[in-house]
């Protein structure tokens, strides 16, 4: 265990459960304490779980193209709840169709996400960055 707590879940009316489960297993193997909220998670549930568990980061998944609507105001909700400086990550099929990735990334960064990952990102692609961000020594 590396002592860091992560909250993860699939936001909004999204029921894609498989990737979420794979992510949970990979993050646990990497030594994190994982609080997996599963699918169909509301903003409120992300915020409340992060408070109770004193989470270090929240990992939001969205695989059905409606992430922008579902995530609007999420950073603000954390600020309102008194944990505004928590690290926020998002990944998946965030938008519908073939929009340029750089634009999508910039859009979600502007919404307050610290890191934004494109479709088909593998756990081993981003876990080193996550560890680095949270100050975990390899």
């Amino acid at each position: 265990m590396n002592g860091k707590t992560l909250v993860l879940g699939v936001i909004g009316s999204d029921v894609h459960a498989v990737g979420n489960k794979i992510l949970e297993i990979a993050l646990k193997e990497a030594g994190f304490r994982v609080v997996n909220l599963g699918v169909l998670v509301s903003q409120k549930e992300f915020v409340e779980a992060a408070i109770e568990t004193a989470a270090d980061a929240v990992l939001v998944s969205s695989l059905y193209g409606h992430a922008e609507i579902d995530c609007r105001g999420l950073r603000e909700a954390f600020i309102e709840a008194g944990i505004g400086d928590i690290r926020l990550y998002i990944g998946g099929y965030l938008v519908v169709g073939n929009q340029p990735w750089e634009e999508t990334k910039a859009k979600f960064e502007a919404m307050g996400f610290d890191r934004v990952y494109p479709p088909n990102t593998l756990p081993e692609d981003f876990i080193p960055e996550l560890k680095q961000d949270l100050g975990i020594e390899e």
Partner: protein
Amino acid sequence: MQLIVLIDIGSTFTKVSAVDLDEARLAAHFQAPTTPRNVNDGLQAALTGLGEELAKVGVTSADVQRAQKLACSSAAGGLQMIAIGLVTDLTAEAARQAALGAGARVLKTYAYELTEADRDEIARLQPDIILLAGGTDGGNYTTIIHNAKVLAALDLKVPVVIAGNRSVAPEVAAYLKHNFSTYITANVMPEIGRLDVEPARQVIRQVFMETIVQAKGLSKAEELIDGIFMPTPAAVLRAGTILSQGIAGHTGWGDLVIVDVGGATTDVHSLGSGQPSRAGTVMRGLPEPFAKRTVEGDLGVRVSASPLVEAVGADVVSSFLGWEPERVRALAARITAEQDFLPQTPDDVRFDQALGYFATKAAVSRHAGRISEVYTPTGPVWIQEGKDLSQFKAVIATGGVFINSSAPAHMLAGAAKEASNPFELKPIDPTYYLDSDYLLAAAGLLAEEYGQAAFRLMERSLKCVR
């Protein structure tokens, strides 16, 4: 015959039952008014009455004296508690569930950081026990420590049960132990999505037995009996658990609901997991305890008659009865004001029936879970919050309004799912039973030592009603 005497010291009546343990049969029953100043007087009167009843069936007074006597109590306001947690829907709710399951009346539930005004309010509310939770294990600890510091200055002698983030439990206790007796137990919510209320319930019961009984002046009654073991609602929940799950040699009844309509409050107990009965349903919200109790402080058939009518709507009650709303309100107000109202006229009786029906209907609706349909790009999905009672096959009624009624099944029909409200997960077409001998609480007490006798006693005494 081996005799055991089971006592339920209620707020109005002290009910005593003698049970023949060999036969698991009720030998005699008696009740006398509870005497709030000194419960001993009412208890003595009830036991004397019971002795006379037993003499008729050939039991000597020496046998009665020698019999083991166990009691539960809801006198002197019952067990009154404050529950404190961190997030309203998470540890604060888990703490509230733990207190309710221990048979308490929860005076108030606090979430997030307590203020000095909150502390003053707690001092005014004068709880018997404070349950302090907050943070999952290894999670947030700042709030529970803050709350312990605020409580440390509370000018009230009250036991504090600590059931929060285990990493800081000793530290929390250290802030409190100069002024309070503290009890550390397992976290009511060790991780998100998991409830662990049983250890806290056990500790609360132990504190109730050791200290609360004395503080409430109930210890005098202990001279006559072998002990007051739990608050009455905890005994009812225990009885329901045994009946649902069964016991060595006896198959349980499976998932069931108990409705206890009282004068001031209505309790609903459900025994069963309440997992979704519809395939492909996603559960949301706090996990539900197998044995769940809810208490509705505004639903009752005597002192709460007016609040009940307001809660369900005077127009709804009036169209049910075919009366003017004003008449409904006036009669409800009269019943609320008169301490010892007894239905006299046929209209009184009809009104009493209506109150019992609506109290049942509203209380079970609030207890039951809800289902809603969400449209996702991959098709519709059902989301369930709370317990699905739709497949629960037995609904058991206890309380005077049912027992004294000539048509208890009509009142109990309020517990069932209505076609007009498809999103409430109430029981579909259950079988109704009546606790006609007031034996549920007694059976819960009996189950402490004689589980099989308790099970057989309930099977024998619960009457199926149509």
